[in-house]
Structures are given as structure tokens and as C-alpha cells.
């Protein structure tokens, strides 16, 4: 008599909490030691990449874990960035106070804009969030006193490290990189704990079958509203960090294509998988490098879009899904041990 085969990760349609594999230890070590070897320019680019990963994680939390298709997370990145610009520059606040405040502002915006998601789902929610993304640019251009209008606004105050640290100016890129890394890492730990917790199971239950979730005593209203706000806050932190790293904000940075790129990266990396956000942004970077080699204007978009379509057909759980399938194959089966 053979015992029932153990359930492997690949059996469930979504891979649940997701595993980092060897990345779990290698990536943090690499990232912490990275400033020792990297030039200032590379560090700046990497800081920006970390910020992008955070925004993609926000999309993943809403779309992947809770099933709220969001084509509009670029809006929250933008709100976080413009909030940060005003908090630092106009209100003259310290970075460490402004960052959580900007996050809260974006989270609150997410709560308000996420209200339709309580009643509308699937492709209609995609429609509404796409509408938000399309409308954000024109609205920002109009609200010139806050956003700098069509030309954007620079941020002049409170962007340097605190004077108490006594850092020489040459170390500023390292400082900014490490702060970004810490903030992004905190969000990753929070997100991982959230999706592993009771709330995380409730979000997945709501995503897969809302009525069954209600029967089990889950309050979908609370779950959807809460998770959408948190995911918007995450995107807002990303925007705030971006505004601080490159102290200039304008509507052009937060147009509809930012939202779509974030969504595409989340899908490519693997929805419903924390590590998927990293894979998705890595894919985005590889495509960008390809673009620089080919030297054609739109080629990165063409490759990225093609990747999205091909993956939807052949690997619906994204790059993370492919990697986990490989890992599951390599693991020895229990009865062979």
C-alpha cells in the first residue's frame, strides 16, 4: 500500500505565502554589502530599483493576495511622492517624520479610492482603477499649488542626512541607499507576516470564494478595505522614497504607464507570492538592459508586453511559479529518503 502523496506547493493554484529559496539568505547579505563595491551611480539606480520593488509588492498584495485587480497603483505612488514633497519642503519636516506621514496620506487615499472595490470586482474593478490611473495626470497638472503643475516641483529642504551624523557629502548615496533598503525590508517583513497570519488566510479565502469566506466568519468588507489601504500605503512609501532619492516630482513620472508597468511587473513576477515582486522588477531591469543594447525606443515595452502575454498562457503564476516548480522537482520525495 502506498501512502497518499504529500501535497506539493505546485498543486494549489496560487502558491500561497511563497518561498524565497536560496534568495532568502543570499539576497539580504548581498544587498547589505552592496555599497562596499558599488559606485555612487549604481547605488542610486539600485535605490530606485528597491523602491520599484516596494510599489510592485503593493500591487501584488492587492491583486495577488486579495484578488482586487488594481491598474491604478501608480496613483498611490504619486500621492506618496507629492505628499512627501510638501511635507519636506513646505512644512519643513524631518525625513523620519515625513516618511510615515506620506505613507499615511497614501494609505488614506487608498482607503477612499478602494471603497468601490467593496462592491465591484474582476474586470469592472480593473476598469475603475484604470480610470483612476488615466485621470491622475490631468488632475495633478491642475493642482499646481501642491504638485508644481505641468512643470513639476523640486524639493530643496530636508533631503540631506541629519547633520548630527556628521556624514561627509561623499557618503550621501550610501546613506540614502541604506535607508531605502531598511524601509523596504521593514515593509517586506510586515507583508510576509501579514500574508502568513490569520488576516492573510482571510484575504486568500476572500479572493478565492467570497461567499465561502463569509460562511467561515470572515468580514470581506474589512479585509478588502484594509488590505487595499495597506497596499496603497506601501506604494505611497515607494513614492515618498522616490521623491526623496531624486528630489523632483512631476506628473510625468506618475502617468498611466507607471501604473501599468507596476501591474505588469507584479503579474510577471508572480501574483500571490512575496518574492514575485522581486522577480518582476528584475525582469523589468533585464528588459531595460535589452533595450539599451538594441537601442530602439519602444523595444523594452514590446518585449515586456509579450512576456506578459506569453506568461499568462504558459506560466500563470509568473516567474515565481516557475522557480517554485523547479524547486519542487529538485526536492527529494519523502518516500525516497
Amino acid at each position, binding site marked *: 500500500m502506498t501512502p497518499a502523496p504529500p501535497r506539493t506547493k505546485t498543486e494549489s493554484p496560487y502558491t500561497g505565502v511563497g518561498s524565497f529559496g536560496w534568495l532568502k539568505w543570499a539576497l539580504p547579505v548581498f544587498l547589505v554589502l552592496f555599497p562596499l563595491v558599488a559606485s555612487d551611480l549604481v547605488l542610486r539606480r539600485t535605490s530606485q530599483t528597491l523602491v520599484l520593488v516596494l510599489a510592485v509588492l503593493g500591487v501584488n498584495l492587492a*491583486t495577488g493576495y486579495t*484578488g482586487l*485587480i488594481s*491598474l491604478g497603483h501608480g496613483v498611490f505612488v504619486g500621492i506618496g511622492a507629492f505628499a512627501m514633497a510638501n511635507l519636506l519642503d513646505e512644512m519643513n519636516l524631518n525625513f523620519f517624520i515625513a516618511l510615515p506621514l506620506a505613507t499615511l496620506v497614501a494609505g488614506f487615499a487608498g482607503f477612499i479610492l478602494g471603497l*468601490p472595490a467593496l*462592491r*465591484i*470586482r*474582476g*474586470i*469592472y474593478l*480593473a*476598469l*475603475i482603477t*484604470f*480610470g*483612476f490611473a*488615466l*485621470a491622475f495626470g*490631468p*488632475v495633478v*497638472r*491642475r493642482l499646481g499649488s501642491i504638485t508644481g503643475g505641468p512643470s513639476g516641483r523640486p524639493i530643496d529642504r530636508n533631503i540631506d542626512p541629519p547633520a548630527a551624523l556628521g556624514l561627509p557629502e561623499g557618503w550621501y548615496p550610501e546613506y540614502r541607499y541604506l535607508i531605502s533598503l531598511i524601509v523596504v525590508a521593514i515593509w517586506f517583513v510586515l507583508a510576509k507576516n501579514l500574508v502568513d497570519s490569520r488576516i492573510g488566510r482571510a484575504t486568500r479565502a476572500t479572493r478565492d470564494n467570497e*461567499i465561502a469566506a463569509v460562511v467561515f466568519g470572515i468580514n470581506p468588507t474589512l479585509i478588502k478595505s484594509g488590505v487595499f489601504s495597506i497596499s496603497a500605503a506601501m506604494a505611497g512609501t515607494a513614492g515618498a522614497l522616490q521623491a526623496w532619492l531624486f528630489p523632483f516630482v512631476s506628473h510625468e513620472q506618475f502617468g*498611466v*504607464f507607471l501604473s*501599468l*508597468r507596476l*501591474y*505588469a511587473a507584479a*503579474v510577471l513576477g508572480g*501574483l500571490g507570492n512575496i518574492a514575485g515582486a522581486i522577480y518582476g522588477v528584475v525582469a523589468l531591469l533585464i528588459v531595460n538592459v535589452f533595450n539599451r543594447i538594441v537601442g*530602439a*525606443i*519602444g*523595444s*523594452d*515595452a*514590446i518585449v*515586456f*508586453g*509579450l*512576456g*506578459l*502575454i506569453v506568461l*499568462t*498562457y504558459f506560466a*500563470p503564476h509568473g516567474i515565481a511559479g516557475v522557480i517554485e516548480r523547479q524547486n519542487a522537482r529538485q526536492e527529494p520525495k519523502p518516500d525516497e529518503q
Partner: protein
Amino acid sequence: MELFIQRLFDGLFNGAIYASLALAIVTIYRSTGLLNFAQAELATFSAYVGLVFAGGSVGAGFGGALPGTGLLENWPGYPYPVPVAVLVAAIFGMVAGALIELVIFRGLERGSALALVNVTIGLLIIVSGLTAQFFGTSARIFPELFPAGFDDFVSIGGARLRYTTLGSWATLLVVLGLLVLFMNRTKAGLAFRAITSNREGARLVGVPVGRTLMLGWAIAGGLGALAACLTAAVVSFSPFTMLGALIYSLAAATLGGLDSPKGAVVGGLIVAQAQTLMPAYLGLPTELAVLAAVIVLVVVLLFRPSGLFGTARVERV
């Protein structure tokens, strides 16, 4: 009063554009249940392809000649009259639409909402890349399709109804008439209506579902291309112009009822009038009219998902 009529007329042109684009979106939605977010990008690309035939840019300082025009310079009769270019654009849009259905969406007939959205966004990103690759990203001025000079208007009650507006609506109405005839008088039209009312039933009685869906996509592609050409003939046209119109078209389609062609046209008119009248009479800044479109989108989907003319969705639980 004169001013009021003038404002109504001003909104009419945008109404034609929004109605065409909304009609394209509705045509695909009612046959496949898919919201084609890439419609504006497809329309833009088709219009550029067509307008290469018309000789590209005529204005100075707007990106110069359209890339690709050089290929055609030795063809007899080049540059071709604008109506020919528009026809080429529409045919290109139709062929592209049909091919997209065949290659990309055929395999997803039973796909989840998530899969459909993913593929649509992938398509949008690809086509935007293709447009940037082939035609650049700068704004251009295209030759006029209808006389658009300073004196080219009909005066009604002191207000000016411009020839471009009249011509756009005439074009749209002719196309609509042909579509209605096609849907009600031909076998392919009958097959299309059968699929929109019950796809599985239609398949069982032998309607070629795939081919008919291709037809729907072709119609949508053609309508979108037409909308983009009408726009390009009037305003300076960049790859992002139609994206600006897309939010209003989506609002128009939703307001009219996502599965109602009549609703798309009426919705297009209402949204366009709201866009011109609200800033004028409520003192809203012009750019914030876009907020009205978003509010229409949200409110209609929340409280009356079937819109003005659509059929109510019934969800089995």
C-alpha cells in the same frame, strides 16, 4: 443662448470621437466579456499607419515628416488624398483587430477576468512600444480631412457649427448605418447577434464562434482607427492623444451600458457635453472635467451596472 448653443456645438466633435471609441469597446465587450483597455493604443497605431499614406506631418516644428513616409515617396500618386489614408487606417485596424483575436485571445475564451486583464494590458504595452518604435513620440499635425479653415462653418442661431464637426458626425452616422444594416441583414451579422445573446447556444447550432468573434474585433479595430483619424485631422496628434480620450470613452460606454451600442453613442454625446458644459457653467477648471468622467464610471458601476440601455447582469451564486 447663442453662447449655450455654441458650447453644445463645441462638445459635438468630441462626442463623435468618444462615441466611436466607446462603440469599439462595446462591440468587443458584448461578444467576449472583455474590456479592451488597449483600444486607444490600437487606434493610434492604425491611424499612424494610414496617415503615412497622406504624407504625414504638414505643420512646421511638430516632429517633422512622419517616419515611414519615405518608403512611399516613389509610389505613383503619393501623397494620397486624406480619405484614402483614413480608409487604409480603417482597413489596417480591422485586419489588426482580427489577427489579435486569432493569435492572442482565441485561446483565452474561458479565461478568468485576471487572465483577460493581463493579456489586454500586455497588448496595450506592446502596441504603445510599437507606436514609439515606428512613429516616435512627438506630436504632429496631419492634413485636414474636412475643411477646417477660419470661415468653414455653418451659422445656426449665431453659433458656429464647424465643418469638421459636421463631417465627423456624417462619417460616424454613415458607418453606424452600415453597421446596423450589416448586423440585421447579413448572415454574419445574425451570427454575431446570436453569439452576443448566447454563445454556447450559438456554438451548438453551428455558428462559427471563433470566426464571428474575429469579425467583432475587426469592426472594433476599424471603428477605433476611424476615431483616431478623425481626431488626428483636427488636433495636433501624439501617441498619447487617444489615451486622453479613452477615459471619456470608457465613461461613455459604462454610462450607456457596456453591452449596448446605442448606449455607447448616447453616452459619448452626454459625456462630451458634460465635458464642455461643466467647466463653463460650474466654474470647474477644464482639466478637472476628467474627474467627472471618473465619477460617472464609479457611480454607474456601483449603483446601476447596466447603465442607461444595457442589460442587467445576473450573477449566479
